[in-house]
């Protein structure tokens, strides 16, 4: 069962060939066996999940109609609100926070009869690229437990790679779905900004955050998108059907794109590790062999993406995280001397270092005297970067790049060097700044048998086409079918 994709499992459950209860039990058996080592989950809901699975099985046995994800054990990142369990964002400040509502995506999963089996670990408030900043626990990479799973959706990626769920949701502010997907050898899609509702997603950088699926293969990503995409009147930044209709992502998935034009950015390749470069070049060749035309493009402002991104993301974060103050919910410090200390002590005691660092950076960028030079400047550069993409997409259907300059790195290797960590986001952040969709798919392994990811980016609201392009590549190889040694 662990070798089945979500789509295949769903089809079997729907046909009554596999019971959802068995699938859920299988997953929990594995969680009990190995999640002690992996650390993917912050919380799991075994009893509730088995109960729901039983209901689904009964409905299927009774020939009742069931939802599109009926009976599938799915994990969600712990920054999406659920009325069951806590929603911690892997932060001490929210360790006991119980949301009175479900995030829209969570509700959509439930309405599609998916079974949310647990909530996954992450970098605290999604601030990090390795899941090491989690204030709750450590998560390791199932491919090499000495290494990080990537981040910030590291728990979702690790859970998936270790077959501790059959699909997962993550959130992506600067690469937080794609990079852990690449580190863990799974597919990760960051949709266009506005495609998936952010309601109930604990905000990090509100103008950059998007929820998306992490899956075993491209088809599963399409299946999940069919459920989570679409307008939500509770999120003013989610687009309506009139602005951008939601296609059926599964319908044309297997149809190759004719006259496909793919762009590569030569300067991007030189900065990646050698094995990575080889894999990307192989991927380019694969597309060439499929008849695609490859062109080289220049993104003149891409070098400025890191500072622009970190200024905008931290500025927004400094404001988004102001609400965690120990007054209305969340952690409160003992014995504050006055109400100001309720704020300053509660925050000091319960935020981790990376969160504090980013709050400081963002506050500084917005503060009087520095706003123009930092925050405003960053917004202008953001516009230039979006123009770069607009210009590029006039010449091509999509852009291929690495996901990260390296494969999964050793735990602790970069933790004390924030700038180095920030710089490793170079390939992924531009998509968030420009709001475009981007997917990471497995495209090889390095010398250490660590997965390598290929990133494909396409114009706004073309996820359907993006997935078709990704699927063309996936069909040509079996990287996505490899299983980490820990499972053998």
């Amino acid at each position, binding site marked *: 069962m662990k070798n089945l994709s979500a789509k295949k499992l769903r089809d079997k459950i729907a046909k009554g060939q596999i019971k959802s209860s068995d699938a859920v039990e299988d997953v929990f058996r594995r969680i009990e066996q190995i999640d002690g080592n992996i650390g993917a989950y912050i919380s799991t809901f075994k009893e509730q999940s088995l109960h729901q699975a039983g209901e689904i099985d009964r409905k299927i046995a009774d020939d009742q109609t069931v939802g599109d994800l009926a009976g599938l054990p799915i994990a969600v990142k712990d920054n999406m609100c659920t009325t069951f369990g806590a929603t911690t964002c892997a932060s001490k400040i929210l360790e006991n926070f119980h949301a009175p509502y479900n995030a829209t995506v969570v509700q959509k999963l439930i309405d599609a009869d998916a079974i949310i089996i647990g909530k996954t670990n992450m970098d605290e408030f999604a601030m990090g690229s390795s899941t090491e900043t989690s204030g709750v626990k450590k998560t390791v990479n199932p491919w090499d437990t000495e290494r990080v799973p990537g981040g910030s959706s590291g728990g979702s990626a690790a859970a998936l790679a270790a077959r501790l769920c059959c699909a997962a949701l993550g959130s992506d502010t600067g690469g937080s779905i794609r990079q852990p997907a690449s580190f863990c050898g799974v597919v990760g899609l960051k949709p266009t900004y506005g495609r998936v509702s952010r309601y109930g997603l604990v905000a990090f950088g509100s103008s950059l955050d998007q929820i998306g699926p992490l899956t075993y293969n491209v088809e599963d990503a399409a299946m999940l998108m069919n459920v989570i995409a679409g307008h939500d009147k509770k999120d003013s930044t989610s687009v309506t059907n009139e602005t951008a209709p939601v296609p059926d992502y599964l319908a044309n998935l297997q149809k190759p794109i004719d006259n496909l034009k793919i762009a590569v950015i030569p300067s991007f390749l030189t900065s990646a590790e050698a094995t990575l470069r080889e894999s990307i070049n192989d991927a380019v060749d694969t597309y060439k062999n499929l008849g695609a035309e490859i062109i080289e493009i220049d993104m003149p402002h891409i070098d*400025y993406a890191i500072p622009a991104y970190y200024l905008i993301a931290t500025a927004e974060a400094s404001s988004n995280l102001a609400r965690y103050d120990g007054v209305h*919910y969340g952690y409160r410090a003992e014995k504050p001397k006055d109400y100001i200390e*309720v704020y*300053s002590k509660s925050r000091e005691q319960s*935020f981790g270092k990376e969160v504090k660092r980013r709050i400081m950076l963002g506050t500084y960028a917005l503060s009087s005297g*520095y706003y123009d030079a930092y925050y405003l400047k960053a917004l202008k550069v953001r516009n230039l970067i979006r123009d770069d993409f607009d210009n590029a997409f006039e010449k091509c259907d999509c852009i291929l790049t690495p996901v990260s300059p390296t494969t999964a790195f050793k735990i602790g290797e970069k933790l004390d060097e924030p700038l180095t960590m920030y710089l490793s986001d170079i390939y992924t952040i531009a998509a968030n700044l420009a709001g475009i969709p981007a997917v990471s798919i497995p495209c090889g392994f390095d010398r250490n048998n660590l997965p390598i990811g290929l990133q494909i980016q396409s114009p706004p609201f073309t996820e359907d086409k993006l997935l078709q392009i990704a699927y063309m590549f996936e069909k040509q190889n079996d990287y996505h079918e490899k299983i980490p040694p820990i499972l053998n």
Partner: protein
Amino acid sequence: MAENIGKKQVQKVAKLSRLQLTQNEIDEFTGQLSAILKYFEKLQQLDTEDVKPLAHCLPINNVFRDDLPQQSLGTEKTLENAPQHDGDFFKVPKILDESSGA
């Protein structure tokens, strides 16, 4: 902007951020933020004189809600996550200054 961020500024930003940092943290952050900001200097190489700031990538505006009341959480649920409450109220140490800024 060229000047490096110093301890004093770090302290000021910490106060604005309501973070009661330890001396160690202030030292550490001063160094790290300096390095980060120094790298960010790079932005100043770009001439953005005629570039509009882009706060949002979305091509949309005028997203409204009708003025129709819906059920609120109610007092009990509102206070459920409160670290401290006094009857129907959230409870905080006595507020002596009047710095409401509405």
